[in-house]
């Protein structure tokens, strides 16, 4: 029973770890380049979830200070950091998608295995 309760309490950490592994698996095993980019995005999302969960304080509210009241606040720093992280993630996705367009123009396919086969025949 205690195990189940602790799992429920830490469900966001477990989800983050699971998502990280799913993303890594997608990047490493799929030969389709678009799927690799989606895998990277899943990994990024998992870390964002992890970061935001660190800052959460149970029962806390958003940190807007009103005079005369003592409240519990969540930690705002991780959320602010993740805003930057999302921007970085978007730029990496944009750049890799543009590279995939170029690869499709030159090789006519976006599958890594097929590209390697094409290169192997020529050289």
């Amino acid at each position, binding site marked *: 029973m205690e195990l189940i309760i602790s799992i429920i309490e830490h469900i966001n950490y477990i989800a983050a770890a699971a998502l990280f592994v799913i993303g890594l698996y997608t990047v490493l095993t799929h030969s389709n380049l678009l799927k690799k980019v989606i895998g990277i995005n899943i990994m990024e999302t998992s870390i964002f979830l992890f970061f935001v969960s660190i800052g959460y304080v149970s029962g806390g509210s958003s940190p807007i200070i009103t005079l005369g009241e003592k409240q519990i606040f969540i930690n705002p720093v991780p959320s602010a950091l993740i805003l930057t992280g999302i921007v970085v993630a978007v730029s990496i996705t944009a750049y*890799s998608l543009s590279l995939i367009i170029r690869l499709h123009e030159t090789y006519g396919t976006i599958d890594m295995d097929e590209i390697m086969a094409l290169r192997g025949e020529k050289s």
Partner: protein
Amino acid sequence: MSSVHFPVYILLILLTTAVTIPLISNRFKNSLKEYIMAAFVVSWVLSFTTLNHVMKNGSYTYSFGNWSQKIGIQFLVDEFSSFMTLIILTVAFLVIIYSLKDMEHEIKDYQFSSYYTLIFLLLFSMIGLTVTNDMFNMYVFMEILSITSCGIISIKHKKDNFLASMRYLILSAIGSLSVLLGIALLYMVTGQLNMFEVSSVISQTWQSYPTNILVSLGFMVSGLAIKAAVFPLHIWLPDAHSSAPTPSSALLSGLVVKVYIFTVAKILFRIIGVEIVAALGIPTYLTYFAALGMIMGSVFAIGQKDIKRMLAYSSVAQIGYIFMGLGLATVQGFSAALFHIVSHALLKTALFLSAGSIIYQKDKRDLRDLNGIGYEMPITMMVFTIAAFGMIGIPGINGFMSKIYLSLAVIDVKKYVYLVIILVSSFLNAMYYLPIIIAAFLKESKDRKNIMVMDKLPRSMIYPMVIVALGCILMGFFPQLIMNVIDKAVPSFLLLGK
């Protein structure tokens, strides 16, 4: 004018130059070149003044907007970071002078200004990564660096370049995400992002959370090892460095990889601290991988036929030397690693620039076509010979001095096996560099007789090469020029955690 703000001015100048370069039309190429050079000279002078100031008055921290270091972003300007900023700017300056002519040959005309935008953003992020003292800031600079270094590979519109930069981008994205996860785990333990604050918290409480610190260090070090191309994780490097335009390969191999090594050193020795890292046993594992890389990188290089690909594999071996120095986790080992970072930056730049000149003039990349080329391009091949001798470790060139320092550091900790590995690796280096030199100067070319003529290269390409080669010799005869600074930088770097 107080020179406290100079590191920030350097970053601002590089950033504004990067943003304003596209405003100048590609038709005014000469004014574009003058603008680039002016920005470089100003930032070089600023960085030199900063180093002078730091050597006289000691290190200082620079908090943005005077926020306390618990909240705001902070730069640490000490002997280490200001010296490395100067090295980065000097090497990049020479490579950029070379590139002004070479890039006209390698990329299309309309891409010319966008290439320099990327170069300036690359320098901006490298210097930022060297001076920053904040972990999240470090991550952001790292991402800028990885995107721009992919950009300067894929700017040449060839099939190989797109594939190489795609592979580099995917692997370095995995690497930087691992680093971010490591930062998150450290933040979970300490609740701080500033390196001083983190290290002061960790030095008090690390015994309560050894697993957390071990896991987070594992993520961060292996993520950075992908980016720094430590041996089993080097697979992206040969493609990326050999297909890129020559100035890009010189920058990538000479500087970008080194900046990631600085970051590893910062994480291991500044954030966590030498004693805790040694107690967790991480440096020992680093030396295993380093020793493997020193041998295997050279073994792979022997089999290569493309000259730039061979140089790229040789980089893998040299990174092994640097990580060997880091992994010893002593003052001597760390200073040998820093010395080798500087000397390898010069040597590899000289090698890549001379290889690029051969490609520029003769359009030959195959090692078997280089017979008798020493009579056709004497200056280029002399530069190549000096740098290759440095790589092998012939006395009088800086590569020899860094091998001496590394061997002394290895003897100091009584790990004599690594001494044998350093020797074997030097012999392997000789095995693939000497045949090129012999072919260039002693064999007859098929097409022409061996009559001495001068290189048909623009002067702006010859001078940077020669200056780099002279720098190698100067550093070989007077290593104390560099060593004096390193001797000051290392203790302050290693003892900061206390």
